[in-house]
């Protein structure tokens, strides 16, 4: 028994209609549509934004600080609190914690640093790309805290890496950390390319 098949070359009325629509649209769409400009006021259209190179570069730097994921002790949890939805450091453009120091420009030193861990932190700092900044968060990061004369604790991160902003507290509340970040942003805003290519 043979099965009747429609020949492959035949075209139905529906297919012909569909093809005509496509051909019409293609023929009438050869040039791109113009973007809508009705919402622009005429005064803005004629304006030019003026700024300095310093202001533009500093604005870009201070509004996209990317912290590196390198935390040694318990102040980390206040940083986690600051970085999640309640305190939300995403407002400052820094919610992305980079797992690689090559992609980061901010080292938030949260917690006690032991001499055994110190070479790794120094190495992380040296691997970060310029320009880079350091926030010492909490009493241990500032001075060693209650462990300042211990046999195994570094008495302050500034023995290992240069510190830009000290955030006191044991641990500092997220609001305190946000205040420290705000201070760092003010510090970055004062940089100038005249002084050097980097931050100092």
């Amino acid at each position, binding site marked *: 028994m043979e099965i009747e098949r429609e020949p492959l070359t035949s075209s139905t009325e529906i297919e012909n209609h569909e093809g005509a629509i496509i051909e019409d649209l293609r023929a009438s769409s050869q040039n791109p549509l113009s973007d809508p400009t009705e919402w622009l006021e005429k005064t803005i259209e004629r304006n030019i934004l003026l700024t300095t190179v310093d202001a533009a570069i500093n604005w870009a730097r201070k509004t996209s600080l990317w912290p590196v994921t390198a935390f040694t002790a318990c102040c980390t949890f206040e940083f986690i609190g600051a970085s999640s939805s309640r305190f939300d450091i995403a407002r400052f453009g820094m919610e992305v914690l980079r797992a690689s120091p090559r992609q980061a420009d901010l080292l938030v030193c949260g917690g006690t640093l032991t*001499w*055994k861990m110190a070479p790794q932190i120094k190495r992380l700092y040296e691997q970060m790309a310029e320009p880079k900044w350091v926030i010492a968060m909490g009493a241990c990061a500032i001075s060693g805290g209650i462990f300042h*004369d*211990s*046999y*195994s604790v570094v008495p302050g991160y500034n023995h290992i890496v240069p510190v830009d902003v000290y955030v006191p507290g044991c641990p500092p509340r997220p609001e305190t950390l946000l205040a420290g970040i705000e201070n760092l942003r003010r510090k970055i805003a004062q940089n100038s390319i005249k002084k050097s290519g980097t931050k100092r």
Partner: protein
Amino acid sequence: MNIADNQELSSHLRTHFGEGIIVHGEYVEITIGKFERVAKYLKESLGYEFLSMITAIDYIDYFELVYRIEAFQNKATVQLKLKCEKVKPVVPSLSHLWYGARLQEREVYDLFGIEFSNHPNLKRIVLWEGFQGYPLRKDFKVKSYDAGN
């Protein structure tokens, strides 16, 4: 073998090792000479099969080592206390009885400077190679105290 109470433990140890062993409750004071044999007997004959921890205490005249050993069968604990001299403290290692003793003995060596004879890998574990002194000893000096407070 299950041990009913500390009285029975005391009498067991007395009959096997003589009068040199003092039992206060679950604390057993022993001498260095009998230490290894007592530990082996506790593990292999009395069912104290788990070495829970090793630590040391720095007294004025001597170091004291504390071994906490547990028996799961009868839910019992015994603590061996062992005095050793202050000048050159050496005690036998228990690493051939319990593998876990290796790390704990290294920690005691690291922080107290007590040597364990026959330990297969006795070196610092928490602090780094080249660290001067043993920081949990009472005579270890820290900065602010060095300067006369």
